[in-house]
């Protein structure tokens, strides 16, 4: 079967899953009390509460009794909350699939931190910050592969010997150490290391070394003349692609590009540490299995040096399992992003989630939107893994 047919089939399989995820978020959104949904959409109203009826003297001073709340009815109509559930579901799915994920509330934690996002569509705001998360993910994946595969292979080949035990301890410690703790401690450690106990930055006069490693963007004082470059918009979104490192390279500003990468190195390492812990065991076990297969014995009987046997014959075969596991654990990998971005102060989608849940009222539009986005990322990663698998293993391609 041709490769692209395989890809198309794989993509089609994904659609029910995506709709299922949106159904789950719909179920959760519907469980919200109506007042919460209205607050999230319109922002808190100091004059009238979001209840179905209010005492009439709030609307028309002097009248007794309870009247229907006009804001309430207007809001309910606008959000379509009085329609039957299946119809609401259909509308919701339709909206989600076309990218209409709601608006950022105008007095929530998100707008507290990112003021220009107030009132914007969620998709647009996410689009501002997604590239940074993707860059971080790419760097982390690179680090993961560089660390996990060689150590896993070494572990399998020298089974139960000191290096295997050390790798086992490494993988367990990576699993047991919470990422935020490791990240915070490493951040503090590096800050003190670079800046010394007085904490001054060696790169940027007038700043602390903390700001050299914390946050996506260098502070204004670090730029020559204290001025942001022109391609960094007011919301600190870069143009033209939105990916900061790539844009900096496009504009020739190598210092900025390097700076962004350095800021991403430590967070990428912390993320990689957690995932390597999980992956190492699988790499080792798959390698052990492959080393017991018949063709490895044939390769040895042919007289190939052991290094060649391991690297060429066994290594390529165990790569399949490694990639599959990477696809399966991608959900867990992505789930670590909000934490790491919060620790290191990076402006990515994960940090948006953190902003949304920090202060009440929670910004539900943003929460649900970013969750669906992350789910789409996981699904896309699984598709890529399957395609890669087909590419690497001729049995899948031609079988």
């Amino acid at each position, binding site marked *: 079967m041709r490769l692209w047919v395989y890809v198309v089939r794989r993509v089609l399989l994904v659609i029910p899953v995506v709709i299922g995820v949106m159904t789950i978020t719909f179920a959760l959104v519907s*469980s919200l009390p109506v007042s919460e949904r209205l607050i999230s959409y319109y922002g808190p109203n100091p004059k009238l509460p979001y209840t179905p009826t209010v005492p009439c003297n709030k609307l028309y001073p002097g009248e007794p009794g309870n009247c229907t709340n006009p804001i309430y009815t207007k809001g309910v109509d606008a959000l379509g909350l009085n329609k039957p559930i299946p119809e609401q579901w259909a509308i919701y799915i339709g909206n989600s699939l076309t990218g209409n994920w709601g608006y950022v509330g105008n007095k929530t934690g998100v707008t507290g931190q990112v003021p220009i996002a107030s009132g914007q569509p969620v998709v647009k705001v996410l689009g501002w910050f997604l590239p940074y998360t993707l860059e971080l993910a790419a760097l982390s994946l690179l680090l993961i592969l560089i660390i996990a595969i060689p150590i896993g292979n070494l572990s399998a080949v020298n089974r139960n010997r000191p290096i295997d035990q050390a790798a086992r301890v490494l993988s367990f410690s990576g699993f*047991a*150490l*919470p990422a935020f703790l490791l990240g915070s401690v490493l951040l*503090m450690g590096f800050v003190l290391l670079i800046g010394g106990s007085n904490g001054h930055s060696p790169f940027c006069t007038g700043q602390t070394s*903390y700001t050299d490693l914390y946050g996506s963007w260098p502070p204004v004082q670090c730029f020559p003349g204290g001025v942001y470059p022109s391609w960094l918009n007011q919301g600190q979104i870069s143009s033209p692609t939105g990916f900061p490192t790539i844009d900096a390279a496009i504009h020739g500003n190598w210092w900025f590009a390097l700076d962004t990468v350095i800021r991403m190195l430590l967070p990428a390492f912390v993320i990689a540490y957690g995932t390597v812990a999980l992956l190492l065991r699988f790499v080792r076990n798959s390698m052990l299995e492959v080393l017991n297969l018949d063709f490895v014995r044939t390769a040895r009987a042919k007289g190939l040096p052991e290094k060649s046997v391991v690297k060429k014959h066994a290594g390529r075969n165990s790569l399949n399992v490694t990639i599959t596991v990477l696809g399966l654990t991608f959900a867990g990998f992505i789930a670590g992003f909000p*934490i790491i971005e919060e620790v290191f102060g990076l402006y990515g989608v994960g940090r948006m989630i953190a902003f949304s849940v920090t202060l009440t009222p929670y910004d539900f539009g943003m929460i649900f939107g970013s969750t669906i986005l992350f789910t789409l990322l996981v699904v896309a990663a699984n598709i890529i893994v399957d395609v890669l698998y087909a590419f690497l293993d001729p049995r899948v391609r031609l079988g």
Partner: protein
Amino acid sequence: MVEEELPAQAIEKPVRRGRRPSPRWDQFRRTWYFFRRNTLAMIGLGILIFFVALFITSFIYPANSTELIPYEATNGAAPSPNPIFPQVCTYQPGEVPPAPNCYLTPTGLPSVIAPTVALSPATLGPLPFGSLTLNPTEPIFYNTFDGLIKGAQWSITISVGVVVSGAILGIFLGVVAGFYGGAVDEVIMRLTDIFLSIPGLLLVIIVLAVFAGSITSTWDRVFLVIGAFVVVWWPTYARIVRSQVLVVREQRYVEAAKASGARGGRILRKHIMPNSIYPVFVQMSLDVGTVPLLIAAIVFIGFHVFPILNFPEWGTITAFSVQGAVLYSFIEACQSSITNTCIFPWWQFFFPGLTLFLFAISVSFFADGLRDALDPRLRR
């Protein structure tokens, strides 16, 4: 023709007198043998036993179970010569404190470590196992040692609750899916696909965020937390159990049971269930250690899981001890301090972090040892 009566295959295994040779017991002994040979697994088991003891102690420890009582701090004097491990300081209630930076805990027990450096309470008061809240200008000091011991109650209960509930739900669905097959299987598998595509932490946060507004009492919150985690975790168990059931279903003894007239329910109960749940035990033990880590992560992000900030639970304490604002204000204070002697109060995050770490790592050593001991291929 043949002279001897000795059968050609005389297998002599040491059999204890008086014990009925039963295959289950034999299997258990074999598993225990392989478990014992694994040093790391034994270390894990040891630490786990310590935690069980801690759990029991935490019920009888004289401190408040649902709130860490804050206390006043006094400012201190000159730094001591050893910045890493300051002197131990003890005194009885009613006596005069021997050194200026010696604090008495609310429970009346002596403080284990006395602080060394005097920084103003506006930044980080280096208290004995002390910790700050999110707002650096109005700090609440509390004793993390008490918090850790009392936290054992909450953390371990929540972990075990999550794991057991998740396992029950997951096993039920997994067995149903694996045994009945067909449309039921498809539906359940699609469901697990969907749930596994959503990153776990995010789903927990959403569920908590949606329902947290209406639930405010401590125990209700605890049940909400357990429920949120179960929502995220049942698919893993369901998958494991289902794949195991698919294997067990094809075994001869199931066929034999069917042939002798046993009906579905009985087969499920007596044959399939007991043989399919071994891998689940491994996964369960692994997950018990991860739950406090996830709660810590959620609190760190900013979502306050429990109704009050100074709730004695391992995750809450750890999360607050490394809040970014706290760290940043420490750096600021160091920069502006005249004497330039800044010693970062490492004990603030170290001990809570160490507790979480030891819990998770002991559990994972144990689970790993269990998995290796149960794996038939590795048994030689």
